[in-house]
C-alpha cells in the first residue's frame, strides 16, 4: 500500500515537473525526495530522435559557408507548434535570433509602400474607367476576306544554292511537282547516287518551262556552271532547295512554292498559324479623348519563323489606331502554319478591335 502511494506521489510530482519545466522541485515527502530530484534532472531530456538526427546532420557534406567556419544554427529539433510566428518582430523569443533593427525598419517601409501602391492603383482604376480598353483580336484566312490586290507585289517562289563563289548559272528549272525529294543542281556533287531521284521544284505540276538546257536559274546571265551562293541545296542565291533568290522550294524571289508566287493561304493542307504571344495594342490618346472605337484589319504574312512580316492595313480606322494596331501585331509571335510537316509562310488577316467601356 505504501509502495503504491509512493508510485502515485512520484507520478504526480513528475506531472508537475513536465508541466512546469522552469519551476523549482515540488515539496514532497522524504521517502521520494531523492527520486523527485532525479526526475527533476530528467525534465530536459532530449527528444528521442534528436541525437540521431543531429548525428545524421553532422555527417552530411558541409555547405560552403560552414567550410569557412560560419556554422549555421540547427532548427532540427524545434517544434512548429511551440514557435510563434515572427518571434523577434513581435518581441517574442528575443535574443533567439540575430536581429538588425534597421533591416526591420526598411522592410516595414517597403511593405507599407507596396500596400499604398496597390491600394492607390485600385483607386486610380475606378477613377479612370473610361480609359479601360479591351481589344478583341481574331485571326482568319485572307482567302475569306476580300482584299485589294497589291500593286506590283512580287510573289513567293524559292531559292537555293550550295555556297558556291559564283552566282547561279543560266538555265531552266526542273519540272514542278507537289513535293520535292531532291533539290535541283547545276553542278552535281554526287554524280553517281545509289538511288537516283529526279530533281523537282515545288509548284503546280501543270506549269512548265520552255525546253532549254542545261538546268539553271532562268534569271541569271552567267554561263559558267554553278549552283549559286545560296544555301540549303537548289540553285541561286536564296535558300530552301528551289531556284532563284527566294526562300523555299519554288522558283524566283519571295516565299512559298510556284513561280514568283506569293505565300500560302490557310486551307488545302496548310494549317492556320496559332498565336502564342499577343500583347494588346494601346489606345491612341487622340482616339481615347474622342471616345473613338472600331476595328482595324491588318494583312500579315506569318513567316516560317513565327514572326509577322509585311504588315499592311487592310481596313483602316484612323485616329492613330492603325499605327497602334501595327505596332502591337508586330510584337506578336505565332506557331507557323504547317504544310506537309514543314513550316510555311502564310498570309492571314487579323482583326484588332478597339473598344471603350
Amino acid at each position, binding site marked *: 500500500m505504501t509502495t503504491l502511494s*509512493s*508510485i*502515485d506521489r*512520484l*507520478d504526480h510530482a*513528475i*506531472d508537475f515537473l*513536465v508541466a512546469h*519545466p*522552469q519551476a523549482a522541485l515540488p515539496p514532497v515527502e522524504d521517502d521520494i525526495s*531523492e*527520486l523527485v530530484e*532525479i*526526475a527533476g*534532472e*530528467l*525534465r*530536459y*531530456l*532530449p*527528444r*528521442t530522435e*534528436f*541525437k540521431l538526427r*543531429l*548525428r545524421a*546532420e*553532422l*555527417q552530411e557534406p*558541409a555547405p560552403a559557408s*560552414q*567550410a*569557412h*567556419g*560560419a*556554422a*549555421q*544554427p*540547427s*532548427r*532540427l*529539433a*524545434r*517544434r512548429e507548434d*511551440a514557435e510563434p510566428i515572427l518571434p523577434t518582430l513581435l518581441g517574442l523569443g*528575443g*535574443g*533567439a535570433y540575430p536581429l538588425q533593427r534597421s533591416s526591420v525598419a526598411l522592410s516595414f517601409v517597403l511593405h507599407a509602400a507596396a500596400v499604398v501602391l496597390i491600394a492607390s492603383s485600385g483607386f486610380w482604376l475606378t477613377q479612370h474607367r473610361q480609359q479601360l480598353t479591351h481589344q478583341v483580336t481574331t485571326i482568319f484566312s485572307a482567302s475569306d476576306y476580300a482584299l485589294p490586290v497589291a500593286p506590283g507585289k512580287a510573289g513567293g517562289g524559292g531559292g537555293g544554292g550550295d555556297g558556291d563563289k559564283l552566282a547561279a548559272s543560266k538555265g531552266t528549272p526542273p519540272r514542278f511537282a507537289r513535293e520535292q525529294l531532291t533539290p535541283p543542281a547545276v553542278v552535281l556533287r554526287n554524280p553517281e547516287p545509289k538511288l537516283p531521284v529526279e530533281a523537282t521544284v515545288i509548284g503546280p505540276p501543270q506549269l512548265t518551262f520552255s525546253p532549254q538546257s542545261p538546268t539553271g536559274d532562268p534569271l541569271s546571265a552567267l554561263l559558267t556552271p554553278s549552283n549559286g551562293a545560296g544555301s540549303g541545296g537548289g540553285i541561286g542565291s536564296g535558300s530552301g532547295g528551289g531556284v532563284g533568290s527566294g526562300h523555299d522550294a519554288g522558283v524566283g524571289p519571295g516565299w512559298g512554292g510556284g513561280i514568283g508566287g506569293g505565300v500560302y493561304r490557310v486551307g488545302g493542307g496548310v494549317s492556320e498559324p496559332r498565336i502564342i504571344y499577343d500583347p494588346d495594342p494601346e489606345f491612341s490618346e487622340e482616339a481615347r479623348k474622342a471616345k473613338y472605337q472600331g476595328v482595324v484589319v491588318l494583312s500579315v504574312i506569318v513567316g516560317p519563323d513565327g514572326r509577322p512580316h509585311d504588315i499592311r492595313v487592310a481596313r483602316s480606322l484612323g485616329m492613330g489606331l492603325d499605327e497602334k494596331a501595327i505596332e502591337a501585331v508586330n510584337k506578336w509571335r505565332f506557331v507557323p502554319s504547317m504544310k506537309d510537316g514543314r513550316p510555311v509562310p502564310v498570309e492571314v488577316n487579323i482583326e484588332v478591335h478597339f473598344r471603350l467601356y
Partner: protein
Amino acid sequence: MTAIANGIDEQLLVEAAQLDPGRFAELYENNFNRVYAYVAHRVRDRDEAEDVTAEVFHQALANLGKFEWRGVPFVGWLLGIAANVLASRWRHPSEREVPAEAMERAETGVEDGMERRTLLLQLLETLPADQRYVLARRFADQRSVREIAQELGRSEGAVKQLQFRAVQTLRARVRGTHDHPVVH
C-alpha cells in the same frame, strides 16, 4: 593509466577527425551527453537546449581544424564553444550572463552537478528497454501515463510502476557510481 590511455585515444580521434570529418561521429557520440547536460542546465528549456547543442557541434565540426591538443579533454573545447554560443544568444547579458569563472569551469569540464547530469544521461541508456521507453516518452516527448499505457497495451498502474522502478534504478546506479567512481 586509464585516463592517460583515454586521453591518447581522444587525441587520436581528434586528429583523425581533423583529417577526415567523417570520423567526427565518434567524438560526437563520446561527448554528446556532457555537452547536452551542460547546455540544458543553463537554458532550462528543451527546445533551446537542443538548438544550442546542435549549434555547438556544428561549430565544432566547422572549426575542428583550429583545435590544438594541449592536454585538456576535447569536451573542454566543446563546452567553451557552448558557453560562447549561450552568451551570444542571450540578448540581455545581465540577466543570464555566463560569468568568466563559469566559462573557465566550462572549458575545463568542471561544472557543479554537471557530472551527475551527464551520468544520468549515460545511465538512462543502461536501463531495461521498457523502463527507458517510459522515461523517454514521459519526459522527452511529454506524454501522459494514459497515452503511454495505450501505446504499450498495459494498464496505467503498470506504467506508473515501470516509471517508479526506472527512477529508483537510476538513483541506485547514481549512488553506486558515486560509491565506486569510474576513472575516465
